[in-house]
């Protein structure tokens, strides 16, 4: 079977997978999908950050050693956490391909995947990854090229980035260029960005061209050179408005218009602590804060008496729920109404992406204490679950059906939001939901059961014995480091990881992979191909013997 146009040299060749590899692949990919959607690189209610990191490293390596190409394609699946992409990029760059490796994917595709992944990462995550390269001394030529291209080629690179990420950018560039070259570039740029300007020699011009300008899109030479000069420490003879404002704001804070909030806080603390209040900083910054930044600082801005409103439509559902839990009691009726409407719309949007929908759906929501999450990602499991329920509710509405919801635990409510607490007794809730005869039941739980442990599995066994074959799917919003994946309530039901509702389609791939590996692999290839194809890049051709 050939799913796409067969060519002389297919870029993806399913025949390249050996039988030894194919046996291990389903489990390795499923665990990868689990981790990729739930491992945030922070501690969870149950595991420390170190345990989570170690589990993620093992899971990535297990798939990587089986097939490097397939691993790289998996990194393009939708709904993956940035942490996974960052880790994947590190894995690919830290282990340069060996020529003799036989892989599912042609090695030339890998560079396209690396470029795509680095483009999709937000700047702060990208720079964090470069910092990791620096710490781990990953400095092969592919890595250096990636750093320089991601920074100097990016259309977003300009005075805003130069100010906001000045020190991170400096460290990343220094890692790519080496300390010696950075020092040379600093002194060359110093000739242009100083009060006593001197002209550059031919050799100096050539160095600038080789190290900086060859990566820069035409017409952006001057802007990039000035930003690099600023990043490397020059603050004289600047012409870009934000850079000028930043330098002037050290003496006169009123000049700091347009500068990001974090830098304003730094300038206040360093130069104007006695003269400028926090409220003045927020007032000045509210124009250039991102919607997420506005929602995250809402508590502080409110405390300082500065009204910062944000558009809930531009924030993802999980984050909106976390915001609601923190702020619901202080919100006006109107603001709450807007957020509820945004959540409803986001649920509908996610529901439209579902592969399959049902008319009558049962949902069991675990509201035990562990769903509160850890201190570093407070409320995340609960927020993800609530966003998922919104999506399921919307999917049912689209088909004029009903959703039966059972909540376990002794959850109280705060501003109409359930509060997790107590033990985990899911078995009774499952039976109650099943009595309403749903076509499918989703159990939203982290998989830790204690009232008593194993009761849920006993109920599943009893159900199957009595001939009740209603599909039951566990949706897990958190990685369990000790089981290197998500934690199953019963080995007879499917457990899907989930970090945001829109990613449920990727989770569903697990089911396909376990039942039909080839179809599952084709699903991964096709999804990756969609991500890679663009006006300038050819689509992936697949050979599937």
């Amino acid at each position, binding site marked *: 079977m050939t799913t796409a146009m067969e060519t002389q040299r297919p870029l993806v060749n399913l025949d390249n997978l050996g039988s030894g590899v194919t046996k291990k692949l389903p489990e390795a990919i499923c665990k990868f999908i689990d981790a990729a959607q739930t491992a945030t690189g922070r501690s969870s209610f149950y595991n420390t950050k170190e345990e989570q990191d170690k589990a993620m490293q093992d899971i990535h390596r297990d798939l990587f050693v089986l097939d490097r190409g397939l691993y790289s394609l998996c990194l393009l699946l939708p709904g993956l956490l940035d942490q996974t992409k960052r880790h994947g990029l590190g894995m690919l760059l830290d282990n340069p391909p060996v020529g003799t490796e036989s892989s599912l994917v042609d090695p030339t595709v890998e560079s396209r995947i690396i470029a795509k992944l680095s483009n999709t990462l937000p700047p702060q995550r990208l720079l964090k990854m470069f910092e990791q390269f620096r710490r781990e001394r990953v400095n092969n030529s592919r890595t250096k090229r990636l750093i320089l291209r991601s920074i100097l080629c990016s259309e977003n690179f300009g005075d805003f980035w130069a100010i906001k990420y000045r020190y991170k950018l400096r460290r990343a560039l220094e890692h790519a260029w080496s300390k010696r070259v950075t020092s040379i570039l600093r002194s060359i740029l110093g000739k242009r960005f100083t009060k006593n300007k001197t002209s550059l020699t031919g050799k100096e011009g050539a160095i600038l061209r080789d190290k900086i300008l060859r990566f820069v899109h035409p017409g952006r030479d001057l802007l990039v050179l000035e930003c690099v000069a600023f990043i490397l420490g020059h603050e004289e003879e600047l012409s870009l408005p934000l850079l000028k404002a930043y330098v002037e704001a050290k003496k006169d804070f009123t000049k700091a218009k347009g500068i990001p909030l974090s830098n304003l806080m730094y300038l206040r603390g360093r130069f104007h602590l006695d003269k400028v209040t926090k409220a003045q900083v927020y007032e000045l910054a509210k124009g250039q804060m991102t919607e997420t930044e506005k929602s995250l600082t809402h508590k502080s801005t409110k405390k300082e008496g500065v009204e910062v409103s944000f558009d809930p439509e531009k924030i993802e559902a999980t984050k909106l729920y976390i915001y609601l839990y923190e702020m619901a009691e202080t919100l006006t009726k109107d603001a709450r109404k807007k957020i509820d409407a945004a959540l409803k719309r986001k649920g509908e949007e996610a529901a439209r992406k579902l592969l399959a929908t049902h008319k009558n759906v049962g949902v069991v929501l675990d509201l035990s204490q562990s769903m509160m999450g850890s201190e570093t990602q407070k409320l995340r499991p609960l927020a993800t679950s609530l966003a998922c329920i919104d999506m399921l509710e919307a999917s049912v509405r689209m088909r004029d059906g009903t959703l039966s919801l059972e909540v376990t635990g002794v959850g109280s409510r705060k501003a109409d939001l359930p509060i997790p607490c107590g033990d985990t007794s899911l078995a009774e809730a499952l039976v109650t939901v099943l*009595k309403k005869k749903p076509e499918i039941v989703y159990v939203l739980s982290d998989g830790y059961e204690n009232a008593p442990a194993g009761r849920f599995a006993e109920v599943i066994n009893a159900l199957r014995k009595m001939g009740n074959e209603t599909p039951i799917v566990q949706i897990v919003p958190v990685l369990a480091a000790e089981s290197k994946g998500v934690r199953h309530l019963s080995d007879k039901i499917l457990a899907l990881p989930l970090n945001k509702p829109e990613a449920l389609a990727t989770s569903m791939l697990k089911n396909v992979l376990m039942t039909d590996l080839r179809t599952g692999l084709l699903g991964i290839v096709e999804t990756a191909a969609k991500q890679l194809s663009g006006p300038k890049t050819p689509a992936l051709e697949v050979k599937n013997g």
Partner: protein
Amino acid sequence: MVRENELDISEILRGMTPGRLQSVGCMQVLPLIGDQNLFDEEIVSPGDKEQKSTLMTRNYGEMTFKNTTDKVLLVPCHVGYITKQRAQDHAMSRCGFVDKQKTKVFGDAMCIEQSQGGYIAEDQHRMMILPYTLREKALKKRSERSFNKLWDDITEFNRSMGVSARAHLVDFLTHYEKQLDEFVAEFECVPQQTGAIILVGGHVVGFERAPNPRFWLDVWPALIRECYGSLAIKVAKEKKLPKNRIALDSGFTTLEELEVGLREAREKEEKATADIVRGLLDKPFSCKAEEGLLKYSIFTVENDQFSGQVVREGEKVCYASLFTKSKWAENAPWRESKKFAV
């Protein structure tokens, strides 16, 4: 007026009500929910994250606690500190008080890492509670001032757990790190919880009571992980579920029947657990007064089955940590066998 000889479990746990039994493998926890009117908010633990009190060591066998709060710091019974510093790990042989905004040196503490030199730097380190098996031994030696008083017992404990033959408690904790972490993960605190009855293998092995819910949340991970978790690891090797973990019947034909079956299993479990606990409630304890601070006093209590320490404010019990004696556990099979009858 403290009536020293009127203590039994029902008195120690007065004002508390049992929650729903949590059961994972051989370990079971019956949460005890406190009465809000009886909470003592004047006591903080060394693990309180908002009121950061600190611990350091300056001599072997001495632990120095600095109470930076305006409340009384209660150092829980057998609290210990295993640090990553190049320092000798230490543990307390009893519980103790530190007055508001004061520093206190406990000279009867113990080294628990035989061949490691160095002192623990001042900080709020993560607490642990000595493994269950070592607690009775540590309590008996509470009045000895010797930094190595627990070394033989730790060596024996490590050997029995198949870890190492040296008095490094950290060896045990590192070896079983993953299993111990799982215990913390599996048992969840319920609202207003201030205590618990801990059962391992269907036997009550400990009663715990804290002065307030916040204190409980601080001390609970250390109790479930190192203290009772260590015992559960030992018992879990037998791979037997406790007798009060009732399996779901089979042969259901409808969801209604299954629902009834679930309820019955739960009721049977509750009854079986209540039967186990009920038999222990009225056994009197002998009490020995130890230390006092302001309105609080520490007593060491003991009967033929349990020993431990309690903190009282007059008649009121604010804190208790009681564990079964090793002899009692050794004789359990004899006591559980049927009396001869014809």
